[in-house]
């Protein structure tokens, strides 16, 4: 079984290679197709034509597109993602600090939203029309209809500005804390490794409001999907059979209905995760969170090619990995699903 699974993983990774190459080509072409001239932008306020030309050649933008692409490919092959002009750092180091920031926030908020959405969805499905079902509906509607930046600002206003119980929305750590030495880039993990529980608490406190904001937003699709999947599972033949066989309600729910309902939920979870990671720009802005979304948007606005390409590539790699993990999860939830059965 195990070598079999390793083989399939290897196969999947190999299949992903052309996709990644396609992403590299497309992101390269698309960034060049964007309106805007980075040389003019970065030459600064009082630049004349000569200095713009100097900047253009310093950035390598005076070369032909194929030549630029070749340079980009050879750099990539040696692991060099290029220099971001807007942050002044190498793209690799930018991604190394910003991706964990986004991942930490997104993962925490997804854990939070799953721990509410899934039980809520199950309860709502088992008691359709009840108070719980209505609560679920209200939460879901509120969650999708309130844009995240709005929820974020309201939460800051109430819990920071009015009540004063939340910490200053100053990003990942208030300035009075020392950031933990980077191991994983996840402050909670790094602080725990360093054994610095003060910083750990500090960074957890900073996470609470943005995580709740994101959780409220991601709650909706998860709860809806759980409810719908559970409803269809509960009305299925095998659940009726299980009930007729006299199994306990608990056994029916957890083993037969929930396990079968989990597949679409996991699919949705994967989609919500990838969506949230790139799309929480507004939350990042409101909470001064140094994440990947705002990085990409700012790079895009000023036509910072290397940064945009690096971002797209990192996201592509992440999604390939994520899809692999989700597919593997399927096979664990439902042994009938295999990679080979196509």
């Amino acid at each position, binding site marked *: 079984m195990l070598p079999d699974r390793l083989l399939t993983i290897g196969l999947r990774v190999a299949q992903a290679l052309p996709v990644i190459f396609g992403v590299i080509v497309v992101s390269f072409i698309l960034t060049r197709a*964007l*309106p*805007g*001239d*980075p040389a*003019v*932008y*970065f*030459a*600064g306020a*009082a*630049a*004349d*034509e*000569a*200095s*713009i030309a*100097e*900047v253009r050649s*310093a950035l390598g933008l005076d070369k032909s597109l194929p030549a630029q692409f070749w340079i980009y490919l050879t750099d990539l092959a040696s692991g060099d993602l290029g220099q971001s*002009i*807007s*942050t*002044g*750092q190498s793209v690799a180091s*930018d991604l190394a*600090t*910003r991706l964990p920031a986004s991942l930490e926030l997104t993962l925490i908020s997804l854990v939070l939203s799953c721990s509410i959405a899934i039980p809520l969805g199950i309860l709502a499905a088992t008691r359709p029309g009840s108070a719980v079902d209505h609560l679920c509906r209200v939460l879901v509607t509120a969650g999708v209809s309130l844009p995240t930046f709005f929820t974020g*600002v309201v939460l*800051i*206003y109430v819990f*920071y*500005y009015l009540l*004063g119980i939340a910490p*200053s*929305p*100053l*990003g*990942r750590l*208030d*300035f*009075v*804390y*020392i*950031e933990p*030495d980077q191991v994983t880039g996840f402050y909670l993990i790094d602080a725990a490794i360093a054994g*610095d529980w*003060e910083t750990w608490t*500090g960074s957890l406190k900073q996470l609470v409001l943005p995580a709740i904001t994101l959780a409220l937003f991601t709650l909706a699709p998860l709860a809806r999907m759980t409810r719908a999947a559970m409803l269809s599972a509960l009305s299925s033949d095998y659940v009726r059979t299980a009930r007729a066989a006299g199994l306990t309600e608990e056994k029916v729910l957890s083993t037969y209905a929930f396990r079968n309902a989990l597949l679409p939920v996991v699919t949705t979870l994967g989609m919500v995760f990838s969506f949230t990671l790139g799309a929480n720009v507004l939350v*990042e*802005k*409101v*909470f*001064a969170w*140094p994440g990947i979304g*705002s990085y990409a948007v*700012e790079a895009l*606005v*000023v*036509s910072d090619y290397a940064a945009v390409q690096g971002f797209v590539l990192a996201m592509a790699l992440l999604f390939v990995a994520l899809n692999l993990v989700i597919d593997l999860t399927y096979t664990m939830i439902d042994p009938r699903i295999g990679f080979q059965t196509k």
Partner: protein
Amino acid sequence: MNDTSRRSFLKGAGATALGASVLPFLKVLPASAASGDVVVAVTGQTINSLDIHRTGTNRPSYQVAVNVYDRLVSFGTKTLADGSLSYDYSVIEPEVAESWEFADDGMAIVFKLRPEGKFQDGSPITAADVKWSFDRAVSVGGFPTVQMKAGSLEKPEQFEAVDDLTFKINLLRKSKLTLPDLAVPVPMIINSKVALANATEEDPWAMEYLHKTPAGSGAFKVAAWKPGEQLVYERNDDWTSGPLPAVKRVVLREVPSPATRRALLERGDVNMSFNMPNKDAKELSDLDGITVATTPIENSIYCLCPNLAFEPFKDKRVRQAIAFAVPYDEVFQTAAYGRGAPMWGGENATPTDISWPQKFPYSTDLEKAKALLEEAGYGDGFEVPLSISQSQADWMEPTALLIQENLAKIGITATIEKVPGANWRTASLVEKRLPLHLETFGGWLNYPCYYFFWAYLEGHLFNSSNYRNEEIEALTAETLHMSVEDPDYAPKIKRMIEIVWDEVPRIALWQPALNVGTHDVSGYEYWFHRQLDVRGLKKA
């Protein structure tokens, strides 16, 4: 090191030697309770380099050149009418130079450096360092080279290290702009020994090294820098170019959302919010405990520019008609929340003094506008796109909407065209292809002729209207380097102002302002570079 000892260690003064990974902060003390020598400021912008000479260094990064490096000379300080502080353009003060004098023929300046002058690493500041730094600024190209050129500082041969403490600049021409241009952030003095030790064959100016590691003599050192998050300044206790600053540390946090910055300032968790939106400045100015300094930005005007390369605007009367159609007061109140200075409603068609910017002789008069259009043969109006930049939508969008509304009343159909921020400079300034658009230019060197040089001469970057007037071309060239005391200067400038008032290639809307909110901190000073100078700050 266990936790308690680390904390007490950090509180101690010995924190200087700590690297960026272990920040010298007081642990677990909120800003409001922080001891008297730490100032926390928030800004919405990112600092992307510690070296102003580097290609791609953005505007907010210029403050590092101000706080971490010194120049030969600096400007004085004055108190404005509203009690806030501003740099004083008319006074040039010593910084690294102790004194200076012009050669008898006026074609050279000789600077005597302070003998006690020291870089942050303790090595002496020598004329060789000044020469190397100036050579670098004129050689690397891009913005620093252009800015040096404004002061007629163009090639390395001009700079001469006579001896260790004597530095000579040979002038290409006599110009009033040279000395002030030495006080702008660009000609900062770099520790050339450190820089050269880190230079390579491909990188003779140590661009890579100085980008992340400043080597200056300034009042503050960079204790930590995380682009996108924060910059921490720490006082250089051995500063030799001025009085020791009152605060020990300044933490500058980047908070992109203006609403969050405002909440932080109102709650008192930060001491300063730099470059606040006009709306917040207006609303917070009445609040107890918060002081808002609103300083009109010198030599800067927000303009509506009709482009003379396009047909209806070739006619002066059409441009004047538009200038009479703008709802100035509404625009100023809506888009600027009344912060800044009005630039309309001047009394005379000829200026009485040479102050700049000053009120243009236009105000909202739709009848006059219609009559002028009629006269020009456009009585039935015409259609024109009105272009604005998406990245400056905060003031451009409301302004454009109000102008559009009034233009409709005189028969001109304007459609608002939003240009992406990355494309704006190319379209408006480089290609100059926008028929009617909003524009903003501010000159660092505070002379009207300097403004004219950039904004009214044909082909110059900020002349996005494609304007050309022979008299303006000639007069600007004559006045640019002329001394202000010259008896010819004022009459010529007045004539120039009169011409551009009459021909209005740029319709002045208002003079913008820089808003800075402070809480428990005094000593904020406005500078022409519009960046935070932390040297004068004091905890209240």
